[in-house]
């Protein structure tokens, strides 16, 4: 399967995608054409997967009104960003592990954030009997 196949998969999400798709195809054949050990899977593939994941996470954060659902969207966005770091670390000229370590820290901080955010959500539910972010308007419960 070629890069164009991935572009067609991304296509429904794009408003005016013809120029973007051709640019992706050109960039793929140009910059990543020499790729051999990757077996046709280049940096671009990972970047597009993480971009789609980030967009999905943003849509979930905005459209969902349940606080826990919003947190799930945030986790998707964090994962998209982490995939970027690991992909850059893999495809960088110096075989460094910096990107993987940044993703490791991101996972740890995401765990701390999830624990604290869920504690706050539980507290909001105790005080207001709801976890809908629109209903929790008063700062002092």
């Amino acid at each position, binding site marked *: 399967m070629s890069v164009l196949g991935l572009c067609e998969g991304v296509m429904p999400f*794009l408003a005016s995608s013809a120029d973007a798709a051709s640019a992706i195809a050109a960039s793929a054949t140009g*910059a990543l054409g020499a790729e051999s050990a990757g077996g046709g899977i280049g940096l671009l593939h990972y970047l597009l997967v993480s971009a789609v*994941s980030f967009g999905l996470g943003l849509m979930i954060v*905005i459209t969902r009104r349940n606080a*826990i659902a919003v*947190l799930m969207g945030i986790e998707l966005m964090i994962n998209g960003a982490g995939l970027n770091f*690991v992909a850059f670390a*893999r495809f960088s*000229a110096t075989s460094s592990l910096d990107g993987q370590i940044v993703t490791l820290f991101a996972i740890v901080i995401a765990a701390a954030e999830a624990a604290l955010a869920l504690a706050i959500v539980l507290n909001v*539910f105790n005080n207001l009997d709801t976890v809908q972010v629109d209903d929790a308007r008063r700062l002092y419960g």
Partner: protein
Amino acid sequence: MTFFELAFWVSALVAIGGGAMVLLTPSIVHMAFWLLGSLAGFAGLYLHLGADFIGFTQILVYIGGILILFLFGVMLTNRSDVPVRGAVSWRFLVPGSIAGVASLGFLVWLVAATPWATHALSPPEPPTPGIGFDLMSRYILPFEAVSVLLLVAMIGATYVARSREERSDEPFDDKGEKGESL
């Protein structure tokens, strides 16, 4: 198609399809389980990139920890007499779609327009010894800072999540009285 490519496409499909189902499914419990699929897809992508330590950390921390935390949160914040309202709010559908599509389009344009300087790949080496060495040498300060952060977050989470009855010894409130106001 080689097995290498097939593994990538399956992982990417699981990651993105799981994320799309998180967006589309109305039930919040189903959202949590589709998120499990999506996170597993990301773990597959990490493994595919040769980052096995990150991949298994992803499975342990995200799927084994954070997702279970989410499910506990769903269980603890839903009363049986109120129907679960996890569905998409129509009022925010248009702004959300605009923001999501715009950010996706911007990122795809950025990815396509940037001349990425990549090189021929060498086979990945096992990253775990290098990660351990780096964490104990170059990244020792962030490592200690993040461990303190975890401790603070854990203590803070247990403090914040206490039930109302347990906080009657609250040292401050707005009327100067003890307890009851929180």
